């Protein structure tokens, strides 16, 4: 392929990515841009050119060992939910904009620590970026089939221009907001897309090699088995090799959290915590898919291309050998994607650290105080843009002068070991509140020194072909300190540096207590769940400060309008008057947070401190204040709960009271009705008696009539009294049933016998349709009462001479059902719902005055229910009335 057409392809592809980023940035709230898949795919920035090309190199030369570097992230995945969620929460709460800011904040907004972390990241990542550029340059060389492509001058090197375009890309989409904690959806979306593209193209070449060049995986394995070193490539080695595996996995475990690009995509660009739940399974799957074909491509390359070819570029060399330029171009673009995403995100993350943790806190603060707000904003953005270009140009020069000799894999591991030096202060600091800034700084410095001695120094000397005599001293050889010589150089360096780092961190943390600010933040980080409730209250501060001065500082960075608005919101939140003069701890904390995103936490602290007069607080006081605010929150929680309980209780009381009132009302009504019912016959008796007494000449038949009335009324009176007592007894549960095993057939015939007089009076037939003996438990007297009530009602409503009453019963499941049917006038529809209510009497009875007391059916119902039974009227029966009684037979 010609140089020219490849450059055209590269430019088109870059243009496409620019376009995608632009569209995504414009639609930053769209569902397509904000979803867990995009979030997870952005994790794929982990798989740089190192993975894309380097893994195959390792697999070809060293076998399955390449896998170690991917096992770490997979093992770490379940921890993300716990660890990453905590880190994300803290970062959001404090508006953290970089890894350096995070660590510096944990140790009390320590300026030096922030700068040190930035330097460590630069040391670790710059060579890593140069490694990516090297990959671009070498693949470009392979694609255009030129030997030794690195040209005589930079200006004719196309890699240089590609690097510049990437810098422009990162600068445009990465520095849109001064507040670096703002999300960059455009870049993240393009990174996610690139992650997809590189996986897709890598899988395509994997399938092509395995199934088109060869006959599947077994074919490759059988052909490759014939080579002599096969077994060493597929076995894991012995005990010593186990150490190498273990530490490499640990290294990658740390890297997945602490590589600045990973921190950027996983923490800073996370906009929904729940997206983590998808990442936890999807990202390990992504890594798995990426590694499926590595071994087969590596072995296929060995078989087809021999030992001479550079194994790292088998993916390109294999299709090119077959003359398949199209496929090679796809692979090239996949590799380019891996490079672009890594370079863009890394340079962006580093540029924020450089501006917020290195340049601004060490030199520009006094300038900011004097400048106009709009100038400051421009200035901060320009620092970042400048930093991006510097990072990429320095990386390019490292590549240009050093990396020719090293493989992708070894530079990658050097980077990992350097970044790993941040692990103790980051991870331990999250869970151990004693970890101090002194321990962190000394630990990192010692760790860096050891890494330098054991890893970088030999590399530097080697590239100058120089061997110092120091290395020959027993126990001081950089790759075998104290005689430990079985570890590979990076693992060896990692082992010694991280051990010393952890030791120093722990030791110096124990001997030196940090100042109160440090302890304050340590508590907030370690106990983040507890203190996130406290929010601004968790910050402890004592001193004198004027709102006016603080506002002045805020205005320098936010402009007048935004500063005023922010303060308004703050005052409203805490119910403070708008003209508050003195600032409290909450306002100090709030203002520092406002500035953190723009200029970093250390600078924010320094700026705010410059306008306030702070007093020293002892550690004990800090802890006391924290305890107090915690208690205050807890107290108000208990109070809230108590008042909730009280109002619940009040509600219950109210309900109970209403119930009582309702019962009282019912009782009143009942008494009222009872009184009415009793007074009515009494009135008849009294009136008749009076008349009989007064009128002695009354003719006999009339006298007889009056006396008859009196008799009837007094009978009614006594019936009524009996019924009322009965009803009350049943209603108040005082009445116990005398339940015995009885034959229903006999009970029915007894009832009928007792009613024979009234039925023959009206010449009404009562028929018991069933004579089968069925024994069950019931109170016979009560059952007779029920049947009597129902049958005498039937007699009452049947026509004389033609009346017919039928009583039947049968067993149904575990119930006995009795039916009483008559051919009388039936129950009117309007009465059907009320007949079982006490004192309800139909308005349509055939006698002028009802004979009943209005309690008959109510008592009947009560008795049946006392037997756990049911009574109801068959409303579908039209030829009279039909009542059903159902009582359980067991």
């Amino acid at each position, binding site marked *: 392929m010609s140089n020219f057409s490849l450059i055209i392809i590269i430019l088109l592809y870059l243009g496409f990515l620019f376009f995608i980023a632009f569209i995504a940035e414009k639609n930053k709230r769209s569902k397509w841009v904000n979803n867990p898949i995009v979030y997870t795919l952005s994790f794929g920035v982990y798989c740089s050119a190192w993975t894309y090309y380097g893994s195959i190199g390792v697999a070809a030369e060293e076998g399955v060992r390449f896998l170690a570097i991917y096992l770490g992230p997979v093992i770490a995945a379940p921890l993300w939910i716990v660890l990453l969620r905590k880190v994300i929460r803290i970062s959001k709460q404090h508006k953290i904009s970089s890894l350096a800011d995070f660590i510096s904040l944990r140790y009390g907004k320590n300026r030096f620590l922030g700068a040190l972390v930035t330097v460590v990241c630069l040391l670790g990542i710059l060579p890593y970026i140069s490694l990516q550029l090297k990959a671009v340059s070498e693949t470009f060389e392979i694609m255009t089939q030129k030997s030794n492509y690195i040209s005589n001058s930079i200006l004719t090197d196309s890699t240089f221009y590609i690097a510049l375009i990437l810098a422009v890309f990162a600068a445009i989409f990465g520095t849109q907001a001064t507040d670096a904690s703002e999300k960059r959806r455009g870049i993240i979306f393009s990174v996610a897309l690139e992650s997809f593209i590189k996986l897709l193209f890598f899988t395509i070449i994997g399938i092509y090699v395995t199934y088109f060049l060869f006959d599947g995986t077994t074919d490759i394995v059988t052909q490759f088995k014939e080579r002599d070193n096969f077994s060493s490539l597929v076995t894991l080695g012995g005990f010593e090799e186990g150490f190498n595996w273990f530490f490499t996995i640990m290294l990658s475990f740390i890297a997945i959290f602490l590589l600045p690009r990973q921190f950027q995509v996983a923490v800073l660009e996370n906009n929904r915590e729940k997206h983590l739940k998808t990442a936890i399974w999807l990202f390990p799957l992504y890594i798995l898919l990426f590694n499926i074909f590595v071994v087969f491509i590596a072995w296929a390359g060995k078989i087809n291309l021999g030992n001479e070819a550079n194994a790292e570029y088998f993916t390109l060399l294999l299709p090119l050998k077959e003359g398949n330029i199209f496929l090679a171009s796809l692979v090239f673009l996949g590799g380019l994607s891996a490079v672009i995403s890594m370079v863009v995100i890394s340079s962006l993350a580093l540029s924020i650290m450089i501006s917020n943790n290195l340049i601004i806190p060490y030199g520009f603060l006094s300038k900011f105080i004097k400048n106009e707000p709009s100038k400051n904003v421009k200035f901060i953005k320009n620092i970042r843009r400048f930093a991006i270009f510097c990072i990429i140009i320095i990386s390019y020069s490292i590549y240009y002068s050093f990396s020719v000799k090293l493989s992708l894999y070894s530079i990658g591991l050097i980077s990992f070991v350097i970044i790993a030096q941040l692990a103790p202060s980051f991870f331990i600091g999250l869970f151990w509140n004693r970890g101090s800034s002194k321990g962190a700084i000394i630990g990192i410095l010692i760790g860096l020194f050891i890494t330098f001695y054991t890893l970088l120094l030999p590399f530097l000397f080697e590239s100058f072909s120089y061997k110092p005599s120091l290395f020959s001293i027993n126990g001081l050889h950089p790759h075998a300190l104290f005689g430990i010589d079985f570890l590979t150089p990076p693992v060896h360096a990692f082992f010694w540096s991280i051990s010393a780092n952890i030791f120093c961190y722990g030791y110096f943390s124990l001997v030196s207590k940090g100042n109160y600010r440090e302890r304050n933040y340590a508590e907030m980080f370690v106990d983040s769940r507890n203190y996130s409730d406290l929010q601004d209250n968790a910050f402890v501060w004592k001193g004198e400060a004027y709102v006016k001065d603080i506002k002045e500082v805020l205005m320098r960075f936010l402009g007048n309008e935004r500063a005023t608005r922010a303060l308004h919101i703050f005052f409203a939140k805490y119910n403070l008057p708008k003209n508050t003069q003195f600032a409290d701890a909450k306002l100090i904390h709030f203002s520092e947070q406002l500035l953190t995103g723009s200029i970093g936490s250390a600078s924010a602290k320094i700026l705010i401190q410059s306008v306030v007069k702070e007093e020293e607080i002892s550690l004990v006081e800090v802890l006391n204040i924290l305890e107090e605010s915690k208690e205050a929150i807890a107290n108000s929680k208990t109070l809230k709960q108590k008042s909730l309980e009280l109002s619940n209780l009040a509600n219950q009381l109210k309900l109970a009271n209403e119930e009582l009132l309702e019962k009282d009302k019912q009782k009143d009504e009942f008494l*009222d009705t009872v009184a009415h019912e009793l007074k*009515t016959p009494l*009135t*008849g008796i*009294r009136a008749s008696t*009076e*008349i009989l007494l007064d009128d002695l000449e009354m003719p006999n038949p009339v006298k007889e*009539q009056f006396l008859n009335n009196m008799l009837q*009324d007094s009978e009614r009176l006594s019936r009524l009294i009996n019924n009322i007592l009965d009803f009350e007894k049943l209603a108040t549960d005082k009445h116990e049933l005398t339940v015995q095993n009885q034959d229903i057939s006999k009970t029915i015939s007894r009832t009928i016998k007792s009613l024979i007089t009234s039925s023959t009076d009206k010449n009404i037939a009562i028929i018991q349709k069933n004579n089968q003996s069925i024994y069950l438990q019931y109170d016979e007297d009560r059952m007779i009462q029920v049947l009597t009530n129902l049958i005498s009602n039937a007699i009452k409503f049947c026509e004389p001479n033609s009346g017919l009453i039928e009583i039947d019963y049968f067993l149904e499941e575990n119930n006995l059902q009795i039916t009483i049917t008559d051919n009388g006038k039936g129950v009117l529809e309007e009465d059907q719902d009320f007949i079982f209510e006490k004192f309800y009497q139909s308005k349509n009875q055939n006698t002028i005055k009802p004979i009943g007391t209005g309690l008959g059916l109510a008592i009947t119902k009560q008795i049946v229910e006392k037997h756990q039974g049911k009574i109801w009227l068959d409303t579908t029966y039209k030829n009279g009335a039909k009542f059903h009684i159902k009582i359980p037979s067991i």
Partner: protein
Amino acid sequence: MKKILIVDDEPSILMALEYAFKKQEYEVFIARDGSEAIEILKTKIPDIILLDIMMPKVDGYQTLQIIKENENLNKVKVVFLTAKSKKADIEKGMDLGVDKYFTKPFSVKKIITEINLLIS
């Protein structure tokens, strides 16, 4: 001759009052509920009406309302006879414009004296 309408659903009370007022030389009409009473009032206009409250079909309150709404009848005096003795019930009756209120059980003699007084 004074005319009286007695409305009650209790046959024994109705009979006792009818007998007592006839003895006092009243012309007596009787009705067993509100609707019967209204039927009678279409043709007869009594001097006084004795009205029970709790009756089937049309109760005493409804009957009283119909009487009061009728121009021919609204001068007729109405007396409630009832077993309802609650203050609220009495007040309800008074609001509707009843002239007198007797609670059951009552003395027949006393009723006669009061009624005579009312229409003289």
